[in-house]
């Protein structure tokens, strides 16, 4: 039996959490390789479509990491992420995706310790949840598109 190695996509704000991830590197703090990072300018840029796209493309978990409230480089972008996530978690639940597969958190540029800790927690959590299998189109006679 193969060990389940989850894939986690992280959307990291370029001003804080992404810097924090770089700082973890400079400090040579290791964390699981399951996290793959997308840099965004602001956590508020994270369109819920990106989260769903990540799940659709095979992510078992998604992290959105932004600046601490009150410290957003763009004032309130991170609050948009917070508002969006509150409803998105509810929607994910309805779609049979455990809420814990999406994690929003705040990581300042210097908080590489926190970054390493929460990435580790997320990987463990998603491992315990197991692989995410989304609904597929399957069931057809022939799944290839035919025109004529």
């Amino acid at each position: 039996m193969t060990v389940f190695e989850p894939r986690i996509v992280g959307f990291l704000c370029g001003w804080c959490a992404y810097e924090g991830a770089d700082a973890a590197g400079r400090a040579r703090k290791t964390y699981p390789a399951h996290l793959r990072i997308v840099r965004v300018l602001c956590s508020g840029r994270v369109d819920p479509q990106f989260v769903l796209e990540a799940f659709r493309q095979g992510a078992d978990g998604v992290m959105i990491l932004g600046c601490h409230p009150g410290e957003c480089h763009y004032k309130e972008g991170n609050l948009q992420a917070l508002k969006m996530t509150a409803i998105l978690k509810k929607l994910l639940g309805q779609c049979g995706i455990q809420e814990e597969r999406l994690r929003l958190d705040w990581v300042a540029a210097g908080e590489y310790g926190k970054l390493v800790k929460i990435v580790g927690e997320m990987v463990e959590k998603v491992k315990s949840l197991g692989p995410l299998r989304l609904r597929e189109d399957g069931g057809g006679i022939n799944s290839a598109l035919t025109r004529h």
Partner: protein
Amino acid sequence: MSDLSQLKTLSRGKKPKIALCWCSSCGGCEESVFDLAEELVDIMAVTDIVFWPAALDAKYQDVAALADGEITATLVNGAIRMEHQEEMARLLRRKSQWLIAHGACAHLGGVVGLANFHGSADLLNRAYQEIPTVHHPAGICPFGEAPDGAGQVGKRGFYETVLPLNRMVAVDFYIPGCPPPPELVKEGLMMVLEQRLPPAGTILGKRQALCQSCPRRGSLPETLRLKEFSRMHQVTWDAAACFLAQGIICLGPATRGGCQARCLQGNMPCRGCFGPLDLVRDQGAKSLSFLASLADSADPEDLQRFADSIPDPGGLFYQFSLAASLLKGKADDQKNNH
């Protein structure tokens, strides 16, 4: 739109062959064709309708007997959930020059696509065993194990997942709506009869969201912040003002315009039947993100209350587009609980 009377000159000679097919849908799309009324008679005069189960007695074999591409255009309404629907869709695709998705179910899966929130076993169990208005002590299900031990009945024909038409066959263009407004059905038919094929994948209607053509747009506020959403029965609302401004969810901002705001004119907020705009992949996600931006607080408790004022976000945001969404429906429970 051209005048129908001109069609007679266009169609001198061989009449174009037209087909209409009904898959998983409620029949409202068929009504939208009948709602063309006298104009339908004009259309019938200049076309040769070779297949239309709702109105004519033509059979599968009649279609199969046609040459490939012999039908000029076929309008398919309804989503694909059954094997025979897929078979019909593929056959009509082969026989038709143009295949048109007619209505929200063919376009996006529609209301029937909401079935994707459930597994097929649960659905059949609910439909044939649990519904309180059904008295069915034998508990016979037309799918699955036959009661007399004769083996599987029809199971193969019932798919796990509802699909929009374009997941099965290539679709040339789409007539959106639940049901589509008759004017848009007519527009689609005229395109066919006048040989004005729009670019592949075109969705009739507007390129802008409903707000642009909403009769209530004058009352749109520049800044709107809400503590929570209300449902229509909970508040007294102004029949002329923007629903969102009154704290009632309206999906107009995330929904393609072109319906003449019929629901709004009938005092109902938009529920999204025309689907997402051209550059939006997932209508529900966009509905979610714009509604979330209206929250008046960043306090987690307030946000929870705000989120809880949307009792069924999935059903609401994806009322017509679940089957076409990124998640396509509920993830497979069994596979997730390993």
